[in-house]
């Protein structure tokens, strides 16, 4: 399944997503064509209402496009069934959300373990991978804490560990610093940059140009259309 380094991990061709609102349909994504190579650290920047959340949902296989094609890691995903999409999310994508989206009643270690449970992994292997991921984000000493006992920055690092635990080819971060103060924001961004430097493919969605600037490649989205800003691969 692993493709050669530098080959396309994400390929969108003429991708559209339309919504109907009050009897009128409008295009949230307007014929988007995009190529993300393995190892890219790309930011999608745009104001609210520009379609970046829709793009994030489609890229994350949480939502299906209205037309066009979407290849993720060599698999054409836009017409897959609910169950197949769940498997793709489980194996190929690590989500990092603005609100962390940790389960408040589960301990840190159980939260990070969740994607591995749905993968059907053995208990021992799950434990190993979970602890490894938490050590990577510097929370190896907080395994048995509840999310509510951690600071915002720490909670976001737990979420990053959860995204890393399954070792997916794509990390998808939606405003990862949106709920954090500037100091913890810098910490989280430093961690993402470190992960990007290690060859992980990261797609970062943000409204903040300062955050976007830390990515190696930046694309701007407005009114559902994409334009390259920095680091485009010709």
């Amino acid at each position: 399944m692993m493709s050669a380094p530098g080959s396309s991990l994400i390929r969108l061709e003429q991708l559209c997503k339309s919504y109907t609102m009050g009897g009128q349909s409008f295009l949230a994504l307007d014929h988007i064509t995009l190529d993300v190579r393995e190892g890219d650290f790309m930011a999608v920047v745009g104001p609210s209402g520009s379609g970046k959340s829709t793009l994030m949902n489609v890229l994350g296989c949480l939502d299906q496009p209205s037309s066009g094609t979407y290849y993720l890691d060599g698999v054409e995903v836009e017409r897959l069934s609910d169950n197949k999409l769940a498997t793709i999310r489980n194996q190929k994508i690590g989500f990092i959300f603005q609100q962390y989206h940790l389960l408040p009643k589960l301990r840190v270690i159980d939260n990070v373990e969740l994607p591995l449970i749905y993968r059907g992994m053995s208990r021992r292997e799950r434990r190993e991978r979970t602890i490894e991921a938490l050590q990577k984000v510097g929370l190896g000493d907080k395994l048995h804490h509840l999310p509510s006992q951690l600071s915002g920055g720490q909670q976001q690092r737990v979420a990053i560990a959860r995204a890393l635990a399954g070792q997916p080819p794509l990390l998808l971060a939606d405003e990862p610093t949106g709920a954090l103060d500037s100091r913890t924001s810098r910490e989280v961004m430093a961690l993402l940059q470190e992960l990007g430097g290690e060859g992980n493919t990261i797609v970062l969605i943000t409204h903040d140009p300062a955050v976007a600037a830390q990515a190696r490649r930046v694309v701007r989205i407005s009114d559902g259309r994409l334009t390259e800003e920095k680091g485009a691969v010709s």
Partner: protein
Amino acid sequence: MKLTQGLRMAWHSVYSQRMRTALTVLGMMIGIASVTIMVAIGNGTAEQVKSQMQGLGTNLLTVNVVGRGATTSISLEDAEALVDIEGVSASAPVITGNVTAKYKAATYSTSIAASTPSYAKVREYEVAQGRFIKEIDGAFAQKVAVIGSEVAEELELSDPVGEKLTLGGIPYTIVGVLAEKGSSSGGSNDNLVVVPIQTARVVLQTNAIRTLYVQAAGEQQVDSVQSALEFNLQRFFRNDENSYSVFNQADLLETVTAVSTSMSTMLTYVAGISLLVGGIGIMNMMLVSVTERTREIGIRKSLGAKRRDIMLQFLVEAALIGGLGGIAGAAAGAGGAGYAGKLMDSPASASTDIMLLAVAFSMGVGVLFGFLPARRASKLNPVDALRH
């Protein structure tokens, strides 16, 4: 996702909502407990009726002579003529009365049955010690007696056979002791003394037979024997139908059984309705739970939970609540059935089978009523659920 994983998740969720779970479990518990108690009482009553049937003797008809005027009773010869019917396997005319039995210093008030050797057969008595009365005892009007186990006990007779006791002041020799038979609707079956019918005049000052036991050879013959018997009696009493009655004990018991069965069936339906209410309680709790946990479902789906994973999680949770209710209900039901049994003096008790069935059934109710909420959860759109 494996079932054990689902069970852990479900336990976690159920435990973190203790109060709500407890109330839902209570609803289930009441349903299961009432079903368990009703079934136990029904079984107990059936058991009781069955044992009474055995206590009276099988395929038994009882003729009571109540006539006034010229013919108030029948003689031994009349009795023999009356039961000369095809299908009769045994008959025993009885003269009954009450008598004071005395042995050494001990006295005991008991009933006496002056009858023939067939008495043991029709009333299904076994002899524990010695022998029953014989034809020859009657032929020579021997003063011999067979005593019930209770009489032996009350008179403190440790080795009664061969001992002499007095019945109404007349000495009798004990030739046998009856085996214990327990009680039936007519009271204790072990409190009596049986003597040859020919000696009845001596102790009871009468030889008027007013009771006649007739045993049919089989269940199928009971009805034909009864009608033949009634025909003979009608002729004997010259169409005076008020002078006698024929009593079919099986008929009566059948009626009692039918009544108690329909009663317990009806009560079980009522209990079933409370189980339905318990199930609705589970559904209600699960629907609330799904709404509250929409975001959790979205998170789980974004992490790769399939529809069936979410479905399993909620179904296991519903089954767990149902199962807890079932266990609590079976325990309460067992206690309640024991108490009801004491109260109604019937052997009502919840068997392990019923309790296991109750637990399994309530888990089934949980799954059934959890299905709709679980399906709703599994069908949530991850994007909308995450935004919740």
